[in-house]
């Protein structure tokens, strides 16, 4: 796992953030990510991300649930142990609709949540570098990846001129890890929070 150098710019308004994202991208910098306290609609497109396919995965899981229910129940009731219930048909599809539906929903929901956690690499105990404490409170934190050619001073000034209220340079681990937080990742009340 590699440590990399990042330039961080914090914005406090959506309407400043969007033009800034555009400027930074036009200038050719590579935005690693923008960390926001809530879902900012349209930001994913502004960053040039493609649509997520999570819902397609959900559909596939749902169909899997349907197939599981239909095949399991029909095998059990027609092959494995055909039970005579008042002479009614063994293959009683209408009576199975509730369970087929429930399993469809169950598979889709569980599958999607697990896929979501896998894609976003979220799990209990997972630690990631936090570029700014207030990214989950009230700041939109833009993180730009530095290359050998990046002039950090220029970039910091560029971010400031585009409305960033705070900027800094951080060397950070990109990936997640298990264990403890960094020692510079100190507690909330020990850090001066400008309001």
């Amino acid at each position, binding site marked *: 796992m590699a440590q990399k150098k990042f330039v961080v710019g914090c914005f406090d308004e*959506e309407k400043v953030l969007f033009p800034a994202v555009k400027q930074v991208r036009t200038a050719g910098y590579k935005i690693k*990510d*923008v*960390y*926001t*306290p*809530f*879902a*900012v609609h349209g*930001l*994913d497109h502004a960053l040039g*991300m493609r*649509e*997520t396919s*999570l*819902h397609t995965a*959900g559909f596939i899981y*749902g169909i899997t649930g349907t197939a599981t229910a239909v095949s*399991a129940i029909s095998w*059990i*009731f027609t092959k*494995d*142990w055909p*039970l005579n*219930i008042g002479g*009614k048909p063994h293959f*009683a599809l209408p009576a199975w609709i*509730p*369970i087929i*539906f*429930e*399993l469809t*929903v*169950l598979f889709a*929901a569980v599958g*999607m*949540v697990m896929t*979501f*956690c896998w*894609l*976003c690499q*979220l799990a*209990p*105990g*997972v*630690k990631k570098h*936090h570029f700014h*404490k*207030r*990214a*989950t*409170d*009230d700041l939109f*934190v833009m993180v730009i990846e530095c290359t050998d050619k990046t002039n950090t001073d220029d970039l910091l000034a560029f971010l400031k001129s585009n409305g960033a209220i705070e900027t800094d340079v951080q060397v950070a681990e990109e990936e*997640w890890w298990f264990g403890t*937080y960094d020692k510079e990742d100190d*507690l*909330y*009340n020990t850090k001066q929070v400008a*309001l």
Partner: protein
Amino acid sequence: MHIKYESQLREPLVYGEKNFHQVTEDILRPIEVKPSRLWYIGFFIAVALLLFGVFSLYREVTYGIGQWNLNKTIGWGWDITNFVWWVGIGHAGTLISAVLLLFRQGWRTGVNRAAEAMTIFAVMCAGQFPIFHMGRVWLAFFIMPYPNSRGPLWVNFNSPLLWDVFAISTYFTVSLLFWYSGLLPDLATVRDRAFTKLRQKLYGIASFGWTGSTKHWQRHESLSLVLAGLSTPLVLSVHTIVSFDFATSVIPGWHTTIFPPYFVAGAIFSGFAMVQSLLIVVRKVFGLTDYITIGHIDLMNKVIVLTGSIVGIAYLTELFMGWYSQNKYEGYTFWYSRAYLFSPYGWSYWGMMACNVLSPQIFWSRKMRRNVFVTFFMSIIVNIGMWFERFVIIVTSLYRDYLPSSWSVYYSPSIYEVGFYLGTFGLFFTCFFLFAKYFPVIAVAEIKYVLKRSGESFKPEFEKLEAEPLDKFVHDNAHAH
């Protein structure tokens, strides 16, 4: 007031002028301070009730179902009444979070988190009743279909009782996933504000390492939307299936096609009443009146009067059909066992009518809908009424069946039956007190999302919009979505 056109109908979703940080502070304050004395008192009462419930169950498990006053024809008494009652209550949360999300109702954000939590706890309580009603509870795993050494002896997939097993367990799982995935960003907010190492560690574990990355938010939105789309038919299916437990039988008073919609409406009705009871207290105690506003209470009361009236129509339809069908058993059940005030259980039918159909009609008045005390009182009344409804359906249909020789004696519960019910109250409130102490009761991130789209924070934006010529506005916005 600077803007020319201000809606008189649409109220702001959040009162007062707030910024994002203020929202965080306001909502997270209750979980960052020491709990009040009131919290401890409430919590200990809840735990005491829970312990009494555990004792009642100990009696039931050790000595058998005979500890309850169920008898030959009343095989379902308080326990199944309580089961249906709790499941019904468990419907509001998912309705608020899923159906209102699909209908783009912004007001859901103030109440969805607490309502979802309530749903999960209510379903947990509901599940206890059928499980312990099995009698030999240690064999409860027999309801799971898996290849076993008993034949293999499979469960009956054609039985509504098994549909219920699947429906309730799926509903619980999906509600839990929906609730917890929505909580992740807010738990991350708590983690990043932690003032002790322990809090940072525990909320760090609980928040799964959420960072707020744009890509994660994009997937999160997609996940919420699809889960909402799945939960909407799910929430309707669950109470439909619960109603099938009755409707597919041949008992007069149960054997009706009206049951599914009637049960679903009743479930939403009682669920919203429970949400009102809880949130009216929570908003006051936690000082969240700017977020759970009178407007929210007003809107939920509208849902209550609507669903209460649907339930009322269902009652009247049943009475009508009891006569119109010319089936003497149906007629006897509806017109004697239920609607005749001086029959043994006539009091419960009229109690139900008074609580569920007549009293909610006061919510046609705007003044009453916006009165916190009336709402709180009514929310309790509605829940009593909905409990009576299930009691009426179950007991009045069972206590006199086709043969007068097997008519049962008057049924009243034993102390352990009541104790079991009180125990589930204990479980519910123990969970709710812990939730209110350790989790944000309002969805912080979602409030931040609606903050700039409604109320004071929206006004400066709107002033500019108003000043623009209409043509330009249309040109700018016509292709926005």
